[in-house]
């Protein structure tokens, strides 16, 4: 058995399913002749994620939504549904050989990936190119790596490896940055934020340290940088000087800066998070919700780790209480400083109740509730859930009238076209306008 194949087994079939999904999401409608099962399984996960929990869907609607929102060609959809039906993730009603409707029966939580993983174990066989792509993507999910080191670590054949990197670059699921005379390969799903800093740091040191640092940070999302610097540790885990440098660079030079809170009693603190995974379809709204979630975690961490008088013992319990009651049961003198960033982001309000005491209340909107849910999973599991699901696609799938969905899709197409189809004259006018703005 080749080294790659062994790696594949080590990967675990559930993780393989997740990686297939990431690669396929980034590929979109680009076709890679070498990939077959990888794309099929990736698409199956994508469909499953979007139909989970929905009632019966007419096939015609599913076809439209898959094509338009999920980049899944209509001709491939029956194959994907056959796969999902085989693992009982869907029940199909058919007339002769035509699929009429699809009833989702997709399991929740990680059981989705485990279910597809079981299919991979028993039914799927990946080509050597696919195996290598999955192994590369998986290693790079933990940290970017030096290209030569990566090839050596995977024990991959030079020609095969080169072609695979080429596919990755063209398909958009790999990115190469050159730093300090070395080619650093990045998995953009995990490291599109501040990619340059990560790449440069890996070129200067090594990827194992970065991977270890991020894994620690994942368990302690929103830990304050100043506290890490003072103790040279995150909670009880020691941080090496090199790792600290990376954290400082992220806070100082990063394009995406970590949230910060300034208080009179503990100064200005940056709260650190692992980079946001960017599924290709991460909508601006999801990104905003994610930013709100990080702000919530930061405010709660401030109360937990850098309080003046009122310390928070369990961040998860506080977030959970906020989600349930949309307010905290007591008023304190610290809330006005601790939660002021949340007021700025329109997440909550500070109500003055006398002297220096303030009460904190959440503004009751769907976005804020979703941000609280996301904040809760950040402090409990360190991971983000639901980022991979396109809410518009779900809304369209919930419609029972194919004509209506068709009109939704058509409107969307129109919008897209409007944004790109400028006439030459319009382009000229636009460039003039821009010149005026920048002059």
């Amino acid at each position, binding site marked *: 058995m080749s080294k790659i194949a062994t790696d594949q087994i080590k990967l675990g079939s559930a993780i393989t399913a997740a990686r297939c999904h990431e690669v396929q999401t980034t590929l979109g409608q680009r076709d890679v002749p070498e990939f077959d099962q990888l794309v099929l399984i990736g698409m199956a996960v994508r469909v499953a994620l979007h139909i989970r*929990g929905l*009632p*019966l869907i*007419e096939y015609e609607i599913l076809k439209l939504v898959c094509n338009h929102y999920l980049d899944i060609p209509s001709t491939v959809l029956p194959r994907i549904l056959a796969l999902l039906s085989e693992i009982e993730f869907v*029940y199909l*009603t058919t007339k002769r050989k035509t699929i*009429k*409707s699809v*009833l*989702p*029966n997709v*399991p*929740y*939580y*990680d*059981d989705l990936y485990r279910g597809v993983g079981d299919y991979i174990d028993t039914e799927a066989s990946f080509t050597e190119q696919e195996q290598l792509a999955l192994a590369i993507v998986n290693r790079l999910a933990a940290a970017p790596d030096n290209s030569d080191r990566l090839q050596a670590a995977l024990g991959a054949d030079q020609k095969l490896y080169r072609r695979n990197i080429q596919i990755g670059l063209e398909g958009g699921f790999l990115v190469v940055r050159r730093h300090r005379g070395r080619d650093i390969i990045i998995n953009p799903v995990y490291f599109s934020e501040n990619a340059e800093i990560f790449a440069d740091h890996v070129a200067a040191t090594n990827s194992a340290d970065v991977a270890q640092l991020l894994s620690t940070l994942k368990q302690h999302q929103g830990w304050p940088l100043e506290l890490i610097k003072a103790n040279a540790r995150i909670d009880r885990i020691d941080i090496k000087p090199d790792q600290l440098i990376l954290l400082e660079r992220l806070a100082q030079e990063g394009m995406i800066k970590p949230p910060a809170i300034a208080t009179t009693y503990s100064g200005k603190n940056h709260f650190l998070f692992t980079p946001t995974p960017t599924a290709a379809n991460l909508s601006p709204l999801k990104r905003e919700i994610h930013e709100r979630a990080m702000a919530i975690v930061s405010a709660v961490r401030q109360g937990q780790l850098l309080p003046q008088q009122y310390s928070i013992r369990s961040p998860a319990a506080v977030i959970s209480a906020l*989600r349930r009651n949309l307010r905290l049961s007591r008023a304190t003198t610290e809330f006005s400083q601790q939660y002021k960033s949340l007021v700025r982001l329109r997440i909550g309000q500070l109500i003055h109740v006398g002297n220096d005491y303030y009460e904190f209340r959440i503004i009751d909107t769907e976005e804020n509730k979703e941000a609280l*849910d996301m904040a*809760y*999973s950040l402090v*409990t*599991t360190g991971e983000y*859930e639901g980022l991979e699901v396109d809410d518009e696609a779900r809304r369209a799938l919930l419609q*029972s009238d194919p004509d209506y969905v068709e009109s939704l899709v058509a409107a969307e197409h129109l919008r897209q076209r409007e944004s790109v189809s400028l006439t030459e004259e319009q382009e000229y006018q636009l460039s003039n306008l821009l010149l005026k703005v920048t002059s």
Partner: protein
Amino acid sequence: MIINDRRQKQAALAYVISKGWFPQIELIIQPPRSANRKPYEITDIDVYGAAPDELSGYRSIVFDCKGGRQASAVTRAMWLKGLMTYLDAEWGICVLADQKMIPSDHREAAGELGVSLMTLSEFDVFAQATDGSSEMPISHLANIDHWGTYIKIGEKYPQLQAAVDFSRGKYWALASGGDAVRHSITLLRQLRGELDPAKREHLVAFGDVLALFLFGLAKVGHRLFRAYLQPASRNELDAVLLPYMYGGRESYSLVEQLTLLIERRPRLHGQAEIAFPEWDSFLQLTRSLLDAPMQALAAPLLAREVAWSFFESSPGFEFAQMLARSKRQTGKFCLQAAKYLGTAAKLPPEFADQFSRIFLMIQVPD
């Protein structure tokens, strides 16, 4: 028996179903904690309805149907009030024969007790005015003859008498949704060797337990949702669901300790593994219900409607289709629950398959 006061019962039953409430006929009241070896039957309720309610889960309504002229109307109301208290029901309706004169003072006194007194023809007016109908919808469940056949199933298949007794009596004395779920599974597991999918009555019995199982599970789901919405992680749901199934943390701890004692071997962190059948699938089913917990409250009615269809050799499914299409998740919940029960009770696969086929078919638009 059903044959007595049949017209009133038929009207009350049809009304309950047309309102979308979960019905039970000839419900035998047993004490929740019996002092005798064999539970003593206190009395019975002619027609019972459980109305899905977004705030409280289900609200109970009891119907008393009396055809004769003997008992005074207000005496019936007093008796019904006692039953209502016993069952925590909010409303009682006495449907009396048309010949019966109901004095205004009786109506007034009954009204004070939360009981409405009316004759059969008044009941028709009442049904129309409250958006229900006492005329029989095209529903298998609203056919009172089928209920008669069901109650007598034990005469033809004595081994199924336990299922009928459970459905009419013991089930309704169970305190919580979790109890109802566990006892429903246990009953099917006990009947496992007897149930034969080739016999229509056996399919009815399976479907009936399925409906009762869903009735308990919908209550659990409703309560879970109010407290936790949709738990974000599998571990969180796992941690809260198991104690719910055993009626609270205390009872759960007791079961846990007993399991440890019986197994006589220590486990990691001192926790015993409670053998809840097919726990993973059950957890997924419960999580699924949390996507639409209010619709889940309507699922038991659909399950029982489909169960009753097996009384007929070539049934129609108009009413079931109407239910499944008006609340689009109910058909799926029924299908998932049928699959779960079939596996958990290790029944021949034809049981779940036959029901699943219908649950799927009724959801598909024409």
